[in-house]
């Protein structure tokens, strides 16, 4: 058999080894469906990045856009009080008043082929935005920094504010990402397409930047209150899907601390030397656990290189031990989450002023069935 034939045979064998399972398409599509319904678990390792991505790519921008539209319309209310009842109110007036309104509460709902799904609930106040998804993930954007927390209040991501990304633009322009761009004349001159006894309805063609997936945007505004009651973003989808935003002005304003980025207090913390000895950290605040033994060091991985890694062993209140990870890579200044069976272990590692000394903060939650698998000390 020639070398070419042997190679062909080995490649075919490899292909069969790869194909030895059922297609994962069903499972993947199921996960996507659950994710879009907002029910996907954020407990999976690494899924915080996906949740964040989803918020940023789909939910946040649109709900924030809705918030600012509300802001504008509320401002417009005062401006129009002496007018003709709104029939000839151009959208420019809405945009001009946007910055004058503060507190807004709203919901985002998505209509897809699989049904209607509540995606998130959001609040806007004093230039800050808080959004909570149905899985409990919360994000806070203060105009400078955006911070995301999981449902346990653990910080899983921090980055630049979405508002601050596009410099030199108004808040409205920034968070709508061109969906209803203030500078677009075709939007500014829009007047209501429908004027009823109670409502004004504005309709917009999709802006150029969103033309790929948006067909039309419709905003319904109360004629007397001049507050929008809903915004619908119709998608270019044969299934007639859309994103619906419902605005609610009766919700009591949230206290200022609600809009503050606040990390859940650590259960234990200590300075640990990279490559040094094990350090015992008291985490007796965590039910069932007394302490965690941490060791930080560097390890060489094939095809990857050298990474900073961690060993961690829990000590229960009954002095039994359980190794929860060995050689687990971690990142500085980033949320590190480990899920080992029924143990949910989270830690932050920040550099200290001393070389190779890191300040470690940790949290530990024991889930159902955690009593199994511990070793006698």
């Amino acid at each position, binding site marked *: 058999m020639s*070398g*070419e034939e*042997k*190679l062909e045979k*080995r*490649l*075919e*064998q*490899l*292909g069969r*080894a*790869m*194909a030895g*399972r059922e*297609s*994962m*398409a*069903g499972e*993947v*599509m199921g*996960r*996507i469906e659950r*994710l879009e319904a907002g029910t996907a678990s954020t407990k*999976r*390792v*690494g*899924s915080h*990045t*996906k949740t964040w*991505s*989803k918020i940023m*790519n*789909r939910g946040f921008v649109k709900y924030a856009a809705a918030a600012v539209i509300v802001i504008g319309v509320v401002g417009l209310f005062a401006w129009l009080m002496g007018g003709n009842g709104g029939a000839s109110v151009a959208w420019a007036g809405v945009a001009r008043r946007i910055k004058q309104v503060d507190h807004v509460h709203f919901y985002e709902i998505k209509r*897809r*082929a699989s049904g209607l799904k509540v995606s998130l609930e959001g609040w806007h106040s004093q230039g800050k935005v808080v959004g909570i998804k149905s899985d409990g993930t919360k994000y806070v954007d203060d105009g400078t920094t955006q911070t995301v927390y999981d449902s346990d209040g653990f910080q899983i991501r921090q980055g630049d504010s979405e508002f601050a990304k596009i410099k030199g633009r108004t808040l409205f322009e920034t968070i709508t990402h061109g969906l209803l761009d203030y500078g677009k004349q075709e939007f500014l001159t829009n007047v209501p397409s429908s004027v009823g006894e109670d409502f004004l309805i504005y309709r917009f063609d999709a802006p150029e930047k969103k033309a*790929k*997936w948006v067909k039309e945007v419709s905003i319904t505004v109360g004629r007397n209150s001049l507050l929008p009651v809903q915004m619908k973003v119709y*998608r*270019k*989808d*044969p*299934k007639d*899907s859309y994103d619906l935003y419902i605005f609610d002005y009766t919700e009591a304003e949230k206290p200022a601390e609600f809009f503050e980025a606040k990390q859940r207090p650590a259960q234990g913390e200590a300075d640990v030397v990279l490559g040094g000895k094990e350090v015992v950290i008291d985490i007796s605040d965590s039910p069932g656990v007394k302490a965690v033994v941490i060791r930080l060091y560097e390890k060489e*991985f094939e095809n*990857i290189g050298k*990474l900073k*890694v961690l060993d961690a062993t829990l000590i229960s209140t009954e002095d039994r031990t359980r*190794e*929860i*990870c*060995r*050689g*687990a*890579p*971690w*990142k500085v200044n980033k949320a*590190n*989450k*480990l899920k*080992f069976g029924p143990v949910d272990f989270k830690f932050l590692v920040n550099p200290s002023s001393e070389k190779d000394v890191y300040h470690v903060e940790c949290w530990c939650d024991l889930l159902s069935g955690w009593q199994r698998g511990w070793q006698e000390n």
Partner: protein
Amino acid sequence: MGAVVGDFEVHVQADAELVKAVVGGERRAFAELVRRYERAVRGVALSVLGDSHAAEDVAQDCFVIAYEKLAELRKPEAFGYWVLKIARREAISRGRLRVKMASLEESKIAAAQDCDGQLDEGLQEVLTAVMKLPRHERQVVMLKYFNEQSIRGISKMTGRAMGTVSKQLSRAHKRLRGILKRTEL
């Protein structure tokens, strides 16, 4: 124009068409992209992790991520490279390594009883060699041998001319023989 299968001509949508359909709201089109690249994605993950169970998890995560970020893909025709890149990044990520490392001790025990999570040494070498190919060649090799696609089918999927696919496959074979020359093929 479609690919010829037996006496029938079957329409094979290009990756770019499927991507556009998904972005346009046709979510089901994504399932076809998953079916098309799942073996290649699994192979990439397996080459990094060395464990097919972990690779399966990474592959699923990879496709979910790809779905979420699909609208950001500037060149829809580059879906193949892009999803394999995501797979590699995901496989390397801290979480997957952690799973592997954390369960290392348990794996040693389990491996004695359950060896279906590992490729045999010879195939692992071939897989590693495939991963060392330039991305164009790696993609055609994976589509041909992992997905059992014809040159015509690969041409349709990737939007490349059949001659180009043939040449890339031929170069890939030559390169693979070179990489594997120290092993007994």
